[in-house]
């Protein structure tokens, strides 16, 4: 359960360098309480909706357990013990306005999570437009805090070649999978749809996969994270990423890399607050989306 207490609404302009400028409702004060599994992810999403900030969260590859112990859940992946059961995260930020608000708010979020949860500790890293919450240490099956293993920290090299955005991502995932020193299966999640249209801005009738092709690769070995940032820097839509891992009992488990446009809360013509995906914030598409429909 995530509870958000909105305060005074103030329209603010974002995406000034992009094609679309949207009015995002920023609150002067931000408070959130999450009492659910993946509380950090939940609070990050609500913070993004208020600000449009590009924030990413990378869970660790959790430790495999030989026995169920406490907190076992039956899930799609079988008997599940990781991620840990519901966290509690309370965050209160005095203001989201002003140039200093972002680093202050994200530092508060990091401090709050690390103080209120004992299964994993995060650190933050700034990469291009993204602030990445990376798991730093994690409690293992024996109960000790140990360095976190992150799938995107895997060193990879990707041959430069012409591919579609979807295929570039598939190759990146494959490179991580084959170079990881640990064994969860990696899934790529781009919602229900391929990202090629949003990535390239090409959506005209008759567009074929060959029209999405462009050349990309890594000149030298680098982390999967750096390669991902390099690839996403070409996109006409900013995609934030999340890594979530599910590890069962005596199982290698799965880690999912999710990519999606930033979601923001905006004021519609009707005056209602609605959620909108921030597409083409970095480049003009070939087909201009229609204006907001009448209410």
């Amino acid at each position: 359960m995530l509870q958000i207490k909105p305060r005074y609404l103030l329209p603010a302009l974002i995406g000034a360098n992009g094609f679309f400028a949207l009015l995002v409702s920023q609150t002067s004060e931000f408070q959130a309480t999450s009492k659910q599994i993946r509380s950090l992810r939940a609070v990050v999403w609500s913070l993004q909706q208020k600000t449009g900030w590009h924030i990413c969260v990378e869970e660790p590859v959790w430790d495999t357990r030989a026995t169920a112990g406490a907190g076992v859940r039956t899930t799609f992946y079988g008997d599940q013990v990781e991620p840990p059961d519901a966290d509690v995260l309370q965050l209160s930020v005095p203001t989201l306005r002003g140039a200093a608000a972002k680093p202050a708010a994200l530092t508060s979020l990091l401090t709050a999570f690390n103080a209120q949860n004992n299964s994993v500790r995060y650190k933050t890293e700034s990469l291009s437009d993204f602030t990445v919450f990376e798991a730093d240490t994690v409690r293992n099956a024996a109960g000790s805090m140990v360095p976190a293993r992150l799938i995107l920290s895997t060193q990879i090299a990707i041959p430069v070649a012409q591919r579609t955005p979807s295929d570039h991502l598939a190759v990146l995932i494959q490179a991580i999978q084959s170079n990881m020193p640990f064994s969860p299966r990696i899934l790529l999640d781009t919602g229900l749809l391929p990202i090629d249209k949003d990535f390239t801005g090409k959506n005209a009738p008759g567009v074929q996969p060959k029209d999405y092709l462009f050349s990309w690769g890594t000149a030298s070995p680098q982390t999967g994270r750096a390669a991902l940032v390099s690839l996403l820097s070409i996109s006409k839509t900013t995609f934030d990423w999340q890594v979530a891992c599910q590890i069962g009992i005596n199982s290698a488990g799965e880690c999912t890399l999710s990519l999606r446009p930033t979601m923001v809360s905006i004021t519609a013509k009707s005056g209602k607050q609605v959620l909108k995906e921030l597409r083409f914030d970095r480049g003009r598409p070939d087909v201009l989306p229609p204006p907001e429909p009448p209410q």
Partner: protein
Amino acid sequence: MGFTNAYWPYLGLYLQDLNGGTFTGRYVTEFTSTASDECWRSDNSFSQLTSLSDRGVWYVGSIVGIDSSGTTASYLYSRANSYGYDNLGFYLSSGSQRLGEYVNNMRPTGNACSVTATQTMYMYCTGYTGAGQYYTSGSTIGDIIAATATAASLTTTRSSVTNVRNYP
């Protein structure tokens, strides 16, 4: 029109017929609101869905479908005052994996759950940029489009037309 081929088993196909004039040769597109995903739970590894439709642009008079490779949109046949296909549902292999998680989510209760959005159709005056006009489906501007999962099947709905696919 049923679902796509075996490559994308959970992607419903829709063919639209237009009434009230002659529109062959015009382009139409869609404005789709952010999806509401009531199937998702916080312990799912996938992100909560925010989109449900392909944001397509169609040429009225032409029916285009995904070919058997599952990736290439190919012209199929002409049909005056009609366009298609509009794809709605769980695309990509990760879409099937997500559907598996969603079905598992509902097992304790057996209740169906849906992912919904509001879709409004827009017709351009000329080409596929610039001015145009929203048009109605029935008496309303904006239809609820939905993908509803039960323990046994997936149903996609657009303009009250449903496609049902039982899980294998």
